């Protein structure tokens, strides 16, 4: 075995250009499959986390919401937006049949002017009734969110003094949330009274976000539907009986994302398959060409006393070295593209995008490398058979 290994390494070293070409070809295999599946898994992961973060069955917003941003654009893409309605709508909505829990939310966009530390989306929730944001906050922060406290999304930079200023009021950052891969990562969270205070000071400073009474303003109502009621029925019931609001099923918000995800995954899948077919075909041709060039070398080994098994082992060792090194290089290249440019991928796809955790990533890496090595070696094995079975006596006659 040591002999086969030594000779393989020497063979590969003595033909650096050929070796490099084969390594690069093999690298395409693991690059495409590792990179592709990492992106697809990040998308699936992002969708799952968005679904979890949304947490509601129905989301109700004022009819005119579209003019200053939609729930989609705020929650998913993190584009700051705002729209308001009077608290009385909350009461009207929460008494409809089938509504088990209803909780108001409050969206405020901070300005980029001097009054605010950062221009972000601020999302307010009612600690009494909230069922979608607090469970998530509890994953990273045990305490209660008191008046004047802020919780920030994972992409918000926390200043050293842990204070953020919004509309000239200073607030304490008490915790930072885990990444979700959605627009929620760039948002700041506060309870209802804190955020209404912000709205009030913004009005004092001349921002005209809402004409009504800031102390009675809400932006949306999140609804959990009781057992035994159809989500669609409840949404329809609200749309019919409560004027000037629009009830949307969370499922339909998700399904548009899921559709986008399916499309992107399909494109990536096709790309990966095409790259694999091309790379394997070229590898196959390359191995056949190389084996023609190597028949003499193998005949010599036979003359000196190598068995067919030894020749097979020699070829297998070479192909495992080539496809192994190639697979590692390819996976490393994929990691170099996918990890640092995750933000870019996310922005250009406009879909929730959350990298899988280290364990899953490691498993994916291992699987991709193993699969690439296997495919690469099988391709060379196909040409190896011929090489090994060649009649030595015949080859030696062809003088070179």
């Amino acid at each position, binding site marked *: 075995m040591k002999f086969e290994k*030594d000779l393989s390494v020497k063979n590969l070293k*003595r033909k650096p250009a050929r070796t490099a070409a084969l390594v690069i070809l093999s690298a395409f295999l693991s690059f495409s499959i590792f990179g592709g599946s990492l992106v697809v898994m990040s998308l699936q992961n992002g969708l799952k986390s968005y679904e979890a973060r949304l947490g509601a069955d129905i989301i109700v917003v004022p009819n005119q919401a579209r003019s200053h941003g939609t729930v989609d654009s705020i929650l998913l893409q993190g584009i700051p937006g705002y729209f308001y309605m009077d608290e009385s709508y909350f009461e009207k909505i929460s008494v409809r049949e089938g509504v088990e829990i209803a909780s108001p939310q409050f969206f405020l966009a901070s300005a980029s002017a001097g009054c605010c530390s950062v221009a972000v989306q601020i999302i307010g929730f009612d600690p009494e009734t909230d069922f979608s944001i607090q469970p998530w906050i509890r994953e990273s922060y045990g305490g209660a969110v008191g008046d004047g406290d802020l919780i920030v999304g994972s992409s918000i930079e926390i200043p050293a003094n842990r204070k953020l200023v919004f509309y000239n009021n200073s607030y304490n950052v008490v915790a930072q949330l885990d990444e979700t891969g959605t627009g929620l990562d760039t948002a700041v969270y506060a309870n209802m009274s804190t955020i209404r205070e912000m709205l009030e000071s913004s009005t004092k400073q001349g921002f005209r976000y809402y004409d009504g009474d800031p102390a009675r303003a809400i932006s949306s109502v999140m609804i959990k539907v009781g057992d035994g009621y159809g989500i669609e029925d409840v949404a329809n019931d609200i749309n019919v009986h409560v004027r000037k609001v629009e009830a949307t099923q969370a499922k339909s918000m998700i399904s548009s994302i899921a559709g986008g995800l399916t499309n992107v995954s399909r494109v990536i899948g096709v790309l990966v398959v095409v790259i694999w077919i091309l790379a394997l075909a070229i590898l196959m041709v390359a191995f056949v060409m190389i084996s023609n060039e190597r028949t003499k070398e193998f005949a010599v080994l036979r003359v000196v006393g190598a068995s067919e098994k030894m020749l097979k082992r020699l070829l297998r060792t070479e192909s495992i070295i080539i496809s192994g090194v190639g697979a590692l290089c390819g996976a490393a290249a994929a990691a170099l593209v996918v990890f640092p440019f995750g933000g870019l991928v996310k922005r250009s796809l406009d879909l929730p995008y959350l990298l899988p955790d280290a364990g899953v990533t490691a498993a994916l890496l291992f699987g991709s490398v193993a699969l690439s090595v296997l495919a690469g070696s099988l391709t060379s094995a196909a040409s190896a058979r011929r090489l090994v079975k060649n009649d030595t006596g015949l080859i030696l006659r062809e003088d070179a």
Partner: protein
Amino acid sequence: MELRAEGVSRRYFRQSKLSNVFFAVKETNFALPAGKLTEITGRSGSGKSTLLHMLAGLLAPTTGRVLLGDTDLYALDDAERSKLRNEHIGVIPQGQTALRSLTVLENVKLPCLMYGDEVSDEIPMSLLERVGIAALRDAYPNELSGGELRRLAIARALLRRPRVLLADEPTSNLDDENTHAVLRLLRQCADEGAAVLLVTHEREAAEYADRVLYMSDGVLSAE
């Protein structure tokens, strides 16, 4: 140890007007006695190399068998036959047969390295000296001349002190002086007890041989 061919022949398929098959070697009985140098000459294409390859266990005969002592070479499986050739049959093939990724010295050591057997530099170096290319020990084959490569193949074949030595035109490409050196070396191997077969076109070879056979159209006969 004696190498014997009993009724060996080798058939090839080839397009021709009369018949699609022809025998490169016709049924032949042939013995290569230990301690003797046997020479085979004959026209190009007469079947010399074919016979030699069958004797070396590299080419299965169409009929007959090849025996090394009591062992039928082609009754063994591939691994056993390969090992046997590695240990007991030194083959100097026609043409240039060095491995390009190994140095001259490594090429000579190849028969031992292949089976993981320890080998010092001493024996391979003394062989390289005897064939006159010791100075090239660390060179790679692409830096060697045709004659130097031939001599490298000879040194490699002798490394294990094989009981049988099969040389297919070992002196082609060599100048007079080196031709005689190589022939002397083969003679010496025979004197030390090996069964030596020399396939050659060289006139001078006859003076070193114990017996000269002539091959013509696949038939072997005493000259």
